[in-house]
């Protein structure tokens, strides 16, 4: 099973470099990494997928990430119920003769044709990674020119924000207010 990590970081220059560097140093492979602003201003949430299978090594990855000063929380959702989605743009060979047929296929996958050329089509599709694999397989019969996959994004099911176990809630509450670095351990937020 692929390891899926949701990582909340401070939005500062060089953070991605620090994260990538950890993986490089231990020769762990990053399968995909997606970053974007989170619900908290000044923070970025990443979904990182690795091909690490072994549980102890997965934990090392998590602990090493947490050691970075700018990393606020790391949640390993590999074995948690969560929604994982991927986005892809697929450019295939297609002319007037096959366009209708392709359109019907794309509808079945709830994708969209977003660009039409005389000899090509660009298809946009979102879904579970296996669904993307499937449509790519189907479309390959027409001849694939180019694929751009955006990497996996994950979010846990349920009402909880897993990052609330870390220091984030403290940080949110403490904007402009004095909070000791370990106040969350003592439950004190002034």
């Amino acid at each position, binding site marked *: 099973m692929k390891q899926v990590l949701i990582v909340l970081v401070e939005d500062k220059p060089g953070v991605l470099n620090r994260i990538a560097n950890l993986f490089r140093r231990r020769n762990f492979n990053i399968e995909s990494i997606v970053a974007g602003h989170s619900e908290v201003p000044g923070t970025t949430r990443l979904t990182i997928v690795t091909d690490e299978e072994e549980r102890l090594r997965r934990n090392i990855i998590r602990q090493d990430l947490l050691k970075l000063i700018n990393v606020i929380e790391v949640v390993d959702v590999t074995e948690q119920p969560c929604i994982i989605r991927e986005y892809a743009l697929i450019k295939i060979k297609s002319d007037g003769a096959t366009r209708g047929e392709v359109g019907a296929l794309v509808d079945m996958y709830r994708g969209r044709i977003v660009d039409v050329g005389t000899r090509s089509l660009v298809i946009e599709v979102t879904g579970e990674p296996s669904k993307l694999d499937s449509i790519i397989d189907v479309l390959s019969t027409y001849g694939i020119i180019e694929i751009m996959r955006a990497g996996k994004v994950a979010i846990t099911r349920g009402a909880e924000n897993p990052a609330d176990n870390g220091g984030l809630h403290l940080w949110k509450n*403490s904007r402009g207010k004095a909070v000791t670095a370990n106040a969350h351990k003592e439950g004190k937020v002034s």
Partner: protein
Amino acid sequence: MNKSERILTGAELLWECLIQEGVEVVFGYPGGANLPIYDTLTAYRDRVRHVLVRHEQGAAHMADGYARVSGKVGVAMATSGPGATNLVTGIATAMMDSSPMVCITGQVAATALGGDAFQETDITGATLPLTKHSYLVMNVEELAETFREAFYIARTGRPGPVLIDIPKDVQNARTAFNYSAEPINLPGYHPPEKASDEAVTTALDMINNAEQPVILAGHGILMSHAMEDVVELMEQASVPATPTLLGLGTIPASHPLNLGMMGMHGTACANHAIQEADLLIACGMRFDDRVTGKLATYSPHSKKIHIDIDASELNKNVRVDLAINADLATVLRQINPGIRKRKREAWVTKIAEWQKDASQRDILQMDSPVLMGGQVIRTIWEGTPEDAVIVSDVGQHQMLTAQYYAHEHPHTFITSGGLGTMGFSLPAAIGASFHVKDKEIWVIVGDGGFQMNVQELGPAVQEGANINIAIINNGYLGMVRQWQQLFYEARYTETPISSPDYVKLAEAYGLPGYRVERREDIPSAMDSARSHQGPALIDFVVEKHDMVFPMVPAGASLHEMIRRPHPKHATIEVGK
């Protein structure tokens, strides 16, 4: 604007920040990209001392040595480009040994960054994996807060080096200076404190029910100030302890339950005890390969408790039964009240047998016509007060110092453990001398390592650093030679090394130098060296082919030690 705020340049602000952080001394070297910093130093000379090194590596090691004896944050300063890259070995050394340090580098102007300007190096990029954290300050308004964070990060949690890279235009820019007194709030950085009640109960169960427990005493004891707590645990529960290399001095060498150092060149007694233990209590150490030997056979019968402030060390090298991520002293204060008093006579007797065996093979009994390194170091131990600070370099003499110098007190043994940086000792001792004023400082260094940073004799003399330098001169890169002898069929490729005449070299630098070739001359040379105020040097010409025993070959099990031949059947090749 607040009345207390003043408008300062970045360079002035830097010195103000250092003063706010209690910095007394900075080790550095000026250059094009930090000229504004040096230009403003004149106004702060009465409050901060600056030591001009001869190579920036020396600055980093000096800051490191100062940090290790004082527990305060050491500060090193360099210019951009080569100045900054010269710091790198020193930064890596501090990182591996968790030494609190702030390195300040000048950088080309922010507007020129990335354009391959003269003396530009991406030093934050280059040191990324070697620092606990690093900053490139692009804006003078952020400078003061950066310093506050950097010092806080360097000294808290698991300490380590932090680098601050400051472009020259930021040094010249002006801003209002206001050093906040607010607590630092880094959302992703919360060093742990206490152990959970559940962990304490489990630990107590394990300790109280163990028959053959051993404490592994690491560097974390020093940094957590847990010396007394560890000794209390040892004495209450009759648990013997064995220090790591950097743990030497955390428990007194003279303590009857101190087994001596563990690991590759540890005592046979400590290694046997670890292998036969039914419980290991690892305190602030990281199961380095030099202390575990072959992991598959490491302490096979024991349950293991690991207490460390760095969560990423837990279950990293050795799988443990109870991992406690917390401050060591705090944990021991939670555990100790619940410890059941026990004598453990069988275990203590077994250990005493191993201890006897080791002493019989000791080289000190050997009657040799030439000096032996171990004998020199033992004689230095006999001739120095027990609180003397010993700074060793890296190699055979380092292991001999660990074995033959009995370290009684914390912060009295300084050495590059994790990185094994040759050339560390001389600058580290100079750095230490700015904190240690009332104790003797002895550098113990090989002829190889001494020549790696010998240029730092310059600042030693210029600053009148009160250090005594003992060169253990065997004409070889001794530890590598030992490996060649044992594992490469005695092909001594590029390990014989020549030396200058160290007595003349000392004279050229302006310090007294002595040469000793006979055992009986050691004490008088020591007296001459220590009676001199300022640096002094002794060149001990020792046996070329001596080896450090016991030795666990790399990759072997901890109990598979190569032992020194019994003195009666000594086959050590003597003289050449």
